[in-house]
């Protein structure tokens, strides 16, 4: 093949990942007892698409797994076999294996061949299990299906006609491996091997496998356009649905791969993923061109009489007597072949991955994150430049330069709008994260023998993409924790008078510039006594007088576990301390609430974005600092009487009846030339982690939106400093790490001045 496929790999990776994700979502949603045919079809389509594209791109291992998966799903889809829990499980595992293989092809993961093989065998076993009962009970298929076509796969002979593209040497090797491959399905006989390139091969096979299975196998060696699978007339059972679904069941020998036959009336119920003639459900599918035919005459099959080569872009003639009801839909498709043909071609020859979600994503484009980040950086620079201009213009005479001032005001508005819309590009709904939890909960609850219902609230809440990526692991740990430690076993729940099924609630919402994510369970709650006992055992400084909040914080200490026994689940490595660390690193906070017997709720607060911050600039001596506005409660000029001293040092301020510790910024940062007299400076009341403190500074300068720059990129972490930003005059200002400062004030009161 002359085209370098590797340039399309990225597209394949993304699409395959999407298909896998939708497959998993479907599997989790499906009810095995009464599967929705639509869902089963969607599942089949996802598997089929992955198989098609992985085959095209030469990812043989993925193709093999999906092939078997597809075969199994296909039988369920056609009602030949009931969907069982076992199948759902196996399919989920297959999905995992595929994800792993996909990761391996991307170069991110190590391919787990053993797992791939294991799942292949498991799926094959399931498929075989389907055959056995089907043969015992002749009128098969639990659903009352009139089609003879769904009869159990008895042994049948098929003639395979195809051409192998490429060099003769490669072609004969390909043929040999194909024969090997086919032998696993039944007895293979080479009727005619190609001598010249372009000669047609002719194999005869006696097998139980469906022609579509055969077609699927041959497809990877043969030139797909030349492939024909024909039942050998003498022993031919009804032809099953063909792999590419362009002809539906006909009781006659299909003699051209490109014949687009009209379905026979009694077969109209067969739903086809890419069916040209499909029933109503499928009419909405991207490849469904014809809707249900209301009065299907047993019309003569519309045969494409031309040979395969010429029909690569199959023209099909309009029907002799077009059906009445959907002529609008039918005719354009039929009469203007080039357009649909172009669309059909990929599906027919499977050269391009099928795109079942065609209609849904027409309104979006794929852009690499780097491009967006670059744009955000540039906009950040623009904001700084705009601020510089505004500052420079503040000295000019507003009367003389009225137009300049107006222009700058306009620029400021536009810049802000631009910034907002650029930032919104990076925003993603949190459902991206939440969607993985049904699976986590399902697997884990089975393992632990607990009954759990997962509720998610506020899935549309948006947050920055980088946060979405980084919150996934900590959140997964919290959910696992709730499941493992929080929720009780059904017996205990019954004993406690609670419904046996526990509930885990995941909710997300915005609150004052933060995104709040809560993980709640209605389990037993944290055991205060046990935590305290454990803490004492570990020699931590604890007392029984500690508030609940303080006790709960203990479980976030490194190496702290109250689990009575270490289970597979709780021994996974990431502890609450790591969760806390990760969340702090994102600029977030974590809080715990718990009530014995009622449940536990863990609240994670994160900034909406990591890149921009509303800040208040304050001056201390010659320096300017930025306080993130979210922490600022109020500011005031302290009066003499408000300051209270403890052991001779004035370290507390009384604000509306509350005593707050005072942090003198100039002392903490050792800044010379700052105001030291209380009444001349300003107190800013800060609140972080539910604790308040007053920060003593010289003056308030203003309020800005600042672009957060990393100090650590070229320097190191500085205690009390969260980052840096560039001010309007081009100078750097440091952003205060308020929670650390507040903590500092609480824990180690600075030495007396």
């Amino acid at each position: 093949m002359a085209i370098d496929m590797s340039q399309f790999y990225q597209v394949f990776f993304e699409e395959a990942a999407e298909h896998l994700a939708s497959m998993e979502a479907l599997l989790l949603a499906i009810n095995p007892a009464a599967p929705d045919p639509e869902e089963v079809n969607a599942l089949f389509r996802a598997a089929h698409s992955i198989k098609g594209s992985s085959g095209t791109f030469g990812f043989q291992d993925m193709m093999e797994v999906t092939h078997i998966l597809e075969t199994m799903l296909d039988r369920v889809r056609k009602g030949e076999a009931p969907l069982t829990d076992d199948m759902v499980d196996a399919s989920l595992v297959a999905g995992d294996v595929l994800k792993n293989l996909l990761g391996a092809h991307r170069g991110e993961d190590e391919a787990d061949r053993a797992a791939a093989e294991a799942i292949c065998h498991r799926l094959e076993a399931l498929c075989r299990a389907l055959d056995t009962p089907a043969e015992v009970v002749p009128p098969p298929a639990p659903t009352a299906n009139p089609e003879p076509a769904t009869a159990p796969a008895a042994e049948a002979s098929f003639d395979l006609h195809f051409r192998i593209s490429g060099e003769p040497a490669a072609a004969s090797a390909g043929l040999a491996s194909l024969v090997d491959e086919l032998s696993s399905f039944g007895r293979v006989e080479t009727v005619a091997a190609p001598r010249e390139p372009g000669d047609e091969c002719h194999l005869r096979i006696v097998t139980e496998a469906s022609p579509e299975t055969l077609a699927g196998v041959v497809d990877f060696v043969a030139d797909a356009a030349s492939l024909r699978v024909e039942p050998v007339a003498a022993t031919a059972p009804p032809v099953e649905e063909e792999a590419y679904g362009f002809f539906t069941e006909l009781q006659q020998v299909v003699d051209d791969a490109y014949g687009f036959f009209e379905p026979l009336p009694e077969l109209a119920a067969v739903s086809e993923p890419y069916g040209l003639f499909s029933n109503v459900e499928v009419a909405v599918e991207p490849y469904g061109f014809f809707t249900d035919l209301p009065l299907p005459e047993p019309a003569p099959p519309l045969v494409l009489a031309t040979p395969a080569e010429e029909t690569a872009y199959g023209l099909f003639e309009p029907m002799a007597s077009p059906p009445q009801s959907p002529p609008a839909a039918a005719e354009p498709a039929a009469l203007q072949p080039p357009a649909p043909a172009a669309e059909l071609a990929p599906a027919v020859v499977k050269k391009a991955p099928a795109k079942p979600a065609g209609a849904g994503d027409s309104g979006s484009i794929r852009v690499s994150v780097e491009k967006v980040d670059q744009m955000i950086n540039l906009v950040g620079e623009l904001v700084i430049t705009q601020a510089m201009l505004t500052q420079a213009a503040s000295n000019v005479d507003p009367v003389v330069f009225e137009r300049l001032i107006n222009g700058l005001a306009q620029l400021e508005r536009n810049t802000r709008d631009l910034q907002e819309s650029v930032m919104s590009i990076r925003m993603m709904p949190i459902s991206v994260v939440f969607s993985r939890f049904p699976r986590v909960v399902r697997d884990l609850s089975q393992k632990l023998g607990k009954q759990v219902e997962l509720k998610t609230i506020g899935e549309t809440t948006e947050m920055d993409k980088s946060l979405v990526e980084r919150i996934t692991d900590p959140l997964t740990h919290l959910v696992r924790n709730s499941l493992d430690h929080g929720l009780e076993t059904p017996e205990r729940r019954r004993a406690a008078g609670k419904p046996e099924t526990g509930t885990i609630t995941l909710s997300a919402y915005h609150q004052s510039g933060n995104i709040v994510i809560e993980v709640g369970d209605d389990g037993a709650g944290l055991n205060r006594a046990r935590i305290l006992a454990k803490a004492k055992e570990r020699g931590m400084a604890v007392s029984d007088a500690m508030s609940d909040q303080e006790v709960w914080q203990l479980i976030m200490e490194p190496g702290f576990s109250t689990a009575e026994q270490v289970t597979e689940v709780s021994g996974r490595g990431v502890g609450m301390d790591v969760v806390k660390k990760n969340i702090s690193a994102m600029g977030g906070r974590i809080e715990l609430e718990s009530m014995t017997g009622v449940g536990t709720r863990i609240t994670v607060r994160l900034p909406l974005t990591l890149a921009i911050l509303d800040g208040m600039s304050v001056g201390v001596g010659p320096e300017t600092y930025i306080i993130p506005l979210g922490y600022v409660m109020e500011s005031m000029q302290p009066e003499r009487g408000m300051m209270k001293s403890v052991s001779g040092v004035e370290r507390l301020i009384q604000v509306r009846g509350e005593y707050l510790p005072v942090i003198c910024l100039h002392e903490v940062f050792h800044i010379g030339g700052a105001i030291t007299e209380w009444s001349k400076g300003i107190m800013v009341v800060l609140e972080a982690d539910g604790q308040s403190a007053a920060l003593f500074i010289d003056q308030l300068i203003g309020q800005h939106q600042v672009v957060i720059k990393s100090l650590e990129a070229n320097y190191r972490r500085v205690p009390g400093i969260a980052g840096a930003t560039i001010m309007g005059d081009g100078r750097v200002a440091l952003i205060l790490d308020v929670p650390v400062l507040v903590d500092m004030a609480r824990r180690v009161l600075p030495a007396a001045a």
Partner: protein
Amino acid sequence: MLQAIQTTAALESEESGFAQELLTFTLGAEEYAIDILKVQEIRGYDAVTTIANAPSFIKGVINLRGTIVPIVDLRIKFSVGVAEYTPFTVVIILNIGGRVVGMVVDAVSDVISLKPEQIRPAPDFASSVDTAYIRGLGALGERMLIVVDIERLMLSSEMALVDEAAQ
């Protein structure tokens, strides 16, 4: 990556006897030389934002076209010359393994090339600088150049420019 290439390049030039390009600068009366491939640019000394509780030789950070860059005063670190800041004070911006650091020196002299044999090993002697960061002493006629392994120096814990954990 770039760093690796540079290191290999330096090694090759040392082994095969190719001359190496060095940027020389003065601190007080002493002349120092560093690998020119580590130099990103040379600029004047700007207003610097001080960092709280940093060692005295870390002057603070500047805004270098949107990047926050720490500035080190080598004169203070090496205890040579007088640390005064005039419009002629020069900052050499270094790019060391992707990290950008500025260092204040008294003056930048020129770019010279030294063959490996012109760089003599430095004898052990007591100084404010660990001799581990001195690659050797370059002889250029009457002049003695102190060839500094600037990468090692800047990434050392002594300079306090990098998180301890990152090392």
